């Protein structure tokens, strides 16, 4: 009796939950209404079976419970009944399958006028590439990948020269136009998922896969990686902004072509030396850092990283949060560097300065920190040397007190939360694992022990 009631309640509760709960598909933002329709149809068919079979079972449990009946009925089988049930089930299955296959055929049939772009998946971020003026993407190979050619574009292929490289996880798409995303990975399996678009596909190293859609609703949508890709899988995020074509074109125009990225000139250290005088006031003449002035060590840090941070300070992506006391002090300093050339030069000068490990000031249990560092090493290198390809700066031998400040800033949304800071959110997600100050101190203590 109790069991029968429980079964009925579960059936009713499940149906109510389906209709009343706030959790369901997000409003669709692409042409894949077919998928949603198939889901709805599947819900009706399966829901019917769920309710009918379970209620029948509940009724049986109540009606034929021991004590209520004298004896069980003897009937080895009933071919007719079983035949009917098989027939009905087959019909129900066919009713779901047929529209499903039709929808799948559409899924595979890319419209001829679909504009092609490329998504590059890598641990642990997305980049994008548009074909440029000639409308054709240049050939690529993982073998061509270097720090200066992170997309692995074939340098001998003229079609690749005008490709527009979006070295950012943020993608813009024009509204109402079919687009075909060619998906590629340079390391492990990834997946390019925009929940509101419904369609998704894995990205496989060594293969180019594809998926197509027509974005139909303007807005900002999250991009997830939905194929386990390593430690920072959950932090592999991007954004898609669907907008009017004019805005899209303006956005696309703001990114360099492959040829332009190759043409970047190296900074001039001699020209950077006088510029550094301003920096040296706080960071020290040898860029060794000065805890008293809250100025971290700079020497030995990757030039690409210093450049990016200076640009961030200049653009307001960093040093504008009200609680970022020291960042706010740095921002006007960075503003004294007039342009990219000045930044390149000063960074080039810093690169010439001697790199002596900063003195250890943080106390903690390095042994405990070792375990947490497993997660840091995935990007920053097992020895904390920093890896440009992972956008991960050097940690070892740098100012440890500064690491603590920045980890806390990331954790509390003081750093990395700005809209323009495209790499910050990832570090913010990672820093969130540091549950308290002791864990952070242990971690930094471990970094101090790395040789």
């Amino acid at each position, binding site marked *: 009796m109790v069991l029968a009631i429980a079964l009925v309640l579960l059936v009713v509760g499940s149906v109510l939950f389906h209709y009343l709960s706030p959790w369901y598909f997000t409003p669709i933002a692409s042409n894949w209404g077919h998928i949603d329709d198939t889901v709805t149809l599947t819900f009706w068919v399966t829901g019917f079976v769920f309710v009918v079979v379970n209620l029948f079972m509940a009724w049986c449990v109540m009606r034929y419970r021991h004590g209520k009946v004298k004896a069980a009925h003897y009937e080895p089988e*009933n071919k007719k009944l079983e035949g009917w049930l098989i027939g009905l089930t087959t019909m129900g299955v066919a009713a779901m399958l047929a529209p499903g296959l039709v929808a799948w055929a559409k899924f595979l049939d890319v419209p001829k006028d679909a504009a092609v772009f490329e998504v590059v998946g890598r641990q642990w971020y997305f980049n994008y590439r548009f074909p440029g003026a000639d409308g054709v993407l240049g050939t690529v190979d993982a073998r061509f990948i270097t720090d200066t050619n992170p997309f692995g574009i074939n340098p001998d292929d003229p079609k690749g020269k005008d490709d527009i490289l979006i070295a950012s996880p943020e993608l813009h798409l024009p509204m109402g136009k079919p687009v075909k995303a060619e998906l590629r990975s340079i390391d492990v399996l990834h997946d390019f998922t925009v929940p509101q678009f419904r369609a998704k596909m894995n990205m496989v190293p060594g293969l180019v896969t594809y998926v197509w859609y027509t974005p139909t609703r303007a807005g900002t949508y999250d991009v997830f990686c939905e194929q386990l890709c390593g430690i920072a899988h959950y932090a592999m995020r991007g954004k898609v902004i669907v907008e009017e074509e004019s805005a899209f074109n303006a956005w696309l125009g703001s990114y360099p072509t492959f040829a332009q990225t190759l043409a970047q000139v190296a900074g001039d250290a001699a020209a950077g030396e006088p510029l550094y005088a301003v920096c040296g006031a706080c960071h020290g003449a040898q860029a060794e850092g000065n805890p008293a002035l809250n100025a971290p060590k700079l020497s030995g840090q990757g030039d690409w990283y210093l450049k990016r941070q200076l640009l961030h300070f200049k653009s307001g992506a960093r040093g504008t949060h009200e609680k970022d006391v020291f960042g706010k002090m740095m921002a006007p300093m960075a503003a004294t560097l007039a342009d990219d050339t000045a930044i390149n030069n000063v960074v080039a000068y810093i690169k010439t300065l001697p790199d002596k490990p900063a003195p250890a000031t943080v106390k903690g249990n390095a042994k405990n920190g070792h375990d947490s560092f497993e997660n840091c090493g995935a990007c920053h290198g097992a020895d904390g040397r920093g890896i440009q390809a992972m956008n991960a700066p050097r940690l070892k031998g740098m100012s440890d007190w500064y690491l603590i400040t920045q980890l806390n800033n990331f954790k509390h949304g003081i750093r990395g939360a700005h809209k323009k800071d495209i790499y910050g959110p990832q570090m913010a997600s990672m820093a*969130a694992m540091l549950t308290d100050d002791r864990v952070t101190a242990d971690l930094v203590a471990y970094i101090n022990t790395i040789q």
Partner: protein
Amino acid sequence: MTYVAHDESAFVPPFEVEEPELYHPKTFIGKYIWSQDAKVIAVQYSITAIAVGLVALVLSGIMRLQLGFPHVFSFITPSTYLQYVTMHGMIMVIYLLTALFLGGFGNYLIPLMVGARDMVFPYVNMVSYWVYLFAVLLLMASFFVPGGPTGAGWTLYPPQAILDGTPGASWGIILMLVSLAFFIIGFTMGGLNYVVTVLQARTRGMTMMRLPLTIWGIFMATILALLAFPALFVSAIMMTLDQALGTSFFMPALVSKGQQLAYNGGSPILFQHLFWFFGHPEVYIVALPAFGIVSDLISVNARKNIFGYRMMVWAILAIGGLSFMVWAHHMYVSGMNPYFGFFFATTTLIIAVPTALKVYNWVLTLWRGDIHLTVPMLFAIGFIFTFINGGLTGLFLGNVPVDIPLSGTMFVVAHFHMVMAVSPILVVFGAIYHWYPKVTGRMLNDTMGKFHFWVTFLGTYAIYYPMHYLGFLGVPRRYYAMGNTVFIPESAQTLNEAITIAALIVGAVQVVFIYNLFWSYFNGKPSGPNPWRATTLEWQTPETPPKHGNFGPTLPAVYRWAYDYSVPGATEDFIPQNQPPGKWAKGLEDKPDASELGPLDSTSGIPKPLTGHS
């Protein structure tokens, strides 16, 4: 090479199969440690599997803590989280469920239910367990090696499984792969036994169509496993070579952490094909024994023959056959040739038909039955409900366009936990409550059993039913933390907290079950030989628990199928399989009991009377 050479060359017709010479141990160690008795081996398998399953249960609790209350527990970092996810999945699927259903229940029930003295190759059977135990220990050892166990997800997809950036990519993954290879070798030894015992060691009169469905399920699952595990074996070897020797079976040219690696041209999709060629039958390796066992539990407790026995057998055969043709439905979004989708969606949905038929027949067995709501029956009905839910969500994921938005989300997690975690586990519990009296001679405590059922059944539903909706929402699986998103509402986190609380409660209540196992061993009500008044042969043994050799001096002869319940005109509402014809009818009760019958006279077919045996 796992066969044992016998020296008898002349063929012996099955009716006169000589009794195998059993190895009779004298010492305690011979009896309970290096035992060749399938029943002891079954208990060894079961205890090991349950012990390692408890480890996996704790791991799942830790995962739920992280999902429900992110960033509270400092020891759960992204890498340890993935390690727990991976180990939880692999242990539960392979080392608990496969080992328990086939090594545990298979070993205990096959000889008893088909009327055999023991497995046909007892020595190989013993080695099978020790190899399994070694595989378990290897796996557990990976918790203690540098870098810890692998965190590649239980699917172990390359390239990431063996690349830096995945936890345990050096030691952990190798231990996992080697452990799997040993598991498969051990399983193959056991599996040969199960198949050959069912084929060759059935007692007189036990035709294939008189086998209880439990045996059919275990038999078919073993065949699936024997044919499917080689795929995992091959891929484990190939991945080990990729990791250790730098071959490029699965590894394409790639750049890891800014470094060009020496791999070239390998195909990650190839691994997925091999893995799922094993992985999908694996679902049925777990499900078919559960289907079989639950059929018997329902029939016994509804005091009614299983409805449509023949259809049930054919459904098992059809599911077994089809299960090798559906593997790529796990790969709709993998980047394989997308045109495969048409074929695999069709085969996948076809497999729903025999599966649905099984569900109908379980429910139709209840219909017009005489339902005793014993603890095993509660679990059986709980199974049907859970399985209906999990099976139906399978129709979502099997249908290719519906799978597209849902794959990789919590919907998948909810679906497969419903269908191949909770459902089989409910059957495992039901089966343990059902057969514990035969194993120990004592009943499990009923009150604890009912409490265990209600919390487990309702609790697991509370965990997994809402989880589907997180999947619809777009919450990805295998995420350490959701972090900031544009669209996932705060309430999703509240739901995650609720799920975690439910999961912790369900997890904790399993302690009651374990306690019950111990408590009842000493204090349980004595059960007698046949407490459920069941027909199958294991309940007709002269001793409970059965001695080595199972059936006293002579093997029983079988006269009927396993489902003669409530036969009109019978004095009792069940007729044991070894009850001779006519004897059960009214007025014939004074004939000798079936277990006292001697061997059949070879010319007349009439049992010879036994002398000197009580």
